[in-house]
């Protein structure tokens, strides 16, 4: 992350904002909601509060405009520049302008206003661009399902370097001690961030913890990720085991860590772009190595890549649509391989997939492997 040299952000913590006008692309209520949620991204992690005002000048004035619009930075028509914002100060300081020549949306069929506004408000609060491709403050646009959006660590560190962390009465101000997490919920509809085998065990990652199924009949263990691997981040997004190298690769954002046994290799984290992903990919949803085909599959939104571990490069002709080669599946959130089958998770569904038969052979409950 980076901040404006010599600009420590707003001196006050209670800020106001005003929506000057609306885009015709979206219902007003959806614009209001997107803007409110975008401010909450920052108020959730700092002492800042944002109050909407209507008929008086506010600290952060929000408007939609096209081409030349009473500042020195004209917009450029569809695509290219989507929006811009000004550093904290009086007058135009803090204001955010959105290019009306874009198509604004609450979903993914256009530019998601919530995502762009959350980025621009980072500038309004004193952040510059980040060179971390996983960060919200990275300069280029990247769609994330708003309901799954989580402010990346780089951005949390950046904004808290200006305003400190948010302290709420019920939260202890002492640093969190790694205490044993509560017993895992074994609901059939439990969802996982990532799943992988590791030397015969199965690890189910979720938020800051993971479930460890050591063998078929042992009672599942529940651990904090950081207790086993202090340098791994929480909320990892994908993981797979490549047994030929006795390695597990763990992915979050545009980085990945290599675990050898229980040790993280010294050259971790690495960049996913070294594996051959295009820059438009900012995160991996799931990954699995298939012993049958000797290929590793990476799943990103509705597409997937095939990676050749021997050649150490992506196979040509990818990405392909998941549904084209995994009939019945459009998105995959977590995956692992066992006894020649792939187990693919999407939401609260687990699909047993035979790559030999190229079809789903069973539908299982998500907790089918977990012995609580």
């Amino acid at each position, binding site marked *: 992350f980076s901040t404006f040299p010599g600009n420590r952000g707003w001196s006050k913590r209670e800020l106001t904002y005003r929506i000057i006008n609306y885009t015709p692309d979206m219902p007003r209520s959806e614009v209001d909601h997107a803007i409110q949620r975008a401010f909450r991204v920052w108020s959730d992690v700092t002492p800042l509060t944002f109050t909407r005002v209507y008929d008086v000048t506010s600290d952060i004035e929000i408007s939609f405009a096209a081409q030349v619009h009473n500042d020195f*930075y004209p*917009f450029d028509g569809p*695509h*290219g*520049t*989507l*929006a*811009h*914002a000004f550093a904290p100060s009086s007058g135009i300081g803090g204001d955010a302008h959105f*290019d009306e020549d*874009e198509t604004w949306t609450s979903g993914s069929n256009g*530019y998601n206003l919530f995502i*762009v506004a959350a*980025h*621009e408000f980072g*500038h309004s609060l004193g952040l*510059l*661009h980040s*060179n*971390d*491709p996983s960060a919200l403050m990275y*300069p*280029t*646009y990247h769609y994330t399902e708003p309901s799954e959006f989580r402010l990346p660590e780089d951005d949390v560190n950046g904004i808290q370097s200006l305003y400190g962390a948010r302290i709420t009465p019920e939260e202890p101000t002492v640093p969190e001690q790694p205490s044993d997490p509560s017993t895992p919920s074994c609901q059939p509809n439990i969802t996982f961030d990532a799943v992988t085998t590791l030397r015969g065990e199965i690890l189910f990652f979720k938020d800051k913890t993971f479930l460890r199924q050591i063998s078929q009949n042992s009672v599942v263990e529940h651990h904090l990720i950081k207790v086993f691997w202090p340098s791994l981040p929480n909320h990892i997004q994908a993981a797979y085991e490549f047994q030929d190298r006795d390695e597990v690769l763990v992915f979050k954002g*545009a980085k990945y860590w290599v675990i050898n046994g229980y040790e993280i290799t010294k050259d971790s984290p690495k*960049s996913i*772009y070294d594996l051959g992903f*295009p*820059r*438009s990919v900012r995160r991996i949803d799931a990954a699995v190595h298939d012993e049958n085909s000797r290929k590793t599959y990476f799943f990103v939104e509705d597409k997937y890549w095939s990676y050749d571990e021997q050649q150490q490069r992506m196979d040509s002709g990818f990405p392909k649509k998941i549904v084209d080669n995994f009939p019945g599946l459009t998105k995959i959130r977590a995956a692992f391989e066992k006894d020649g089958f792939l187990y693919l998770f999407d939401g609260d569904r687990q699909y047993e997939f035979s790559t030999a038969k190229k079809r789903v052979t069973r539908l299982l409950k998500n907790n089918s492997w977990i012995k609580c």
Partner: protein
Amino acid sequence: FPAKAPEANKETDAKFAEEYLKKYYNLQTNGRQSRKKGDGPLITKIKEMQQFLGLKVTGILDSDTMEVMHQPRCGFVDAGE
């Protein structure tokens, strides 16, 4: 049809890159290419951009670099005032 000659592509890319670097990396040019030995301001700025965006720092407008420059983005500068 007729397919643009590769040089035309190169020229288009160079023009696009110059605008991009002026806008987001504070490139200052008076339109003339530097005759001095070593990296001129344009190549220096291309390297600065590649460094910032996590690209391979080559100083040339390779496909990775062009792909990122064509991605929709925020109008705020990446470097400079």
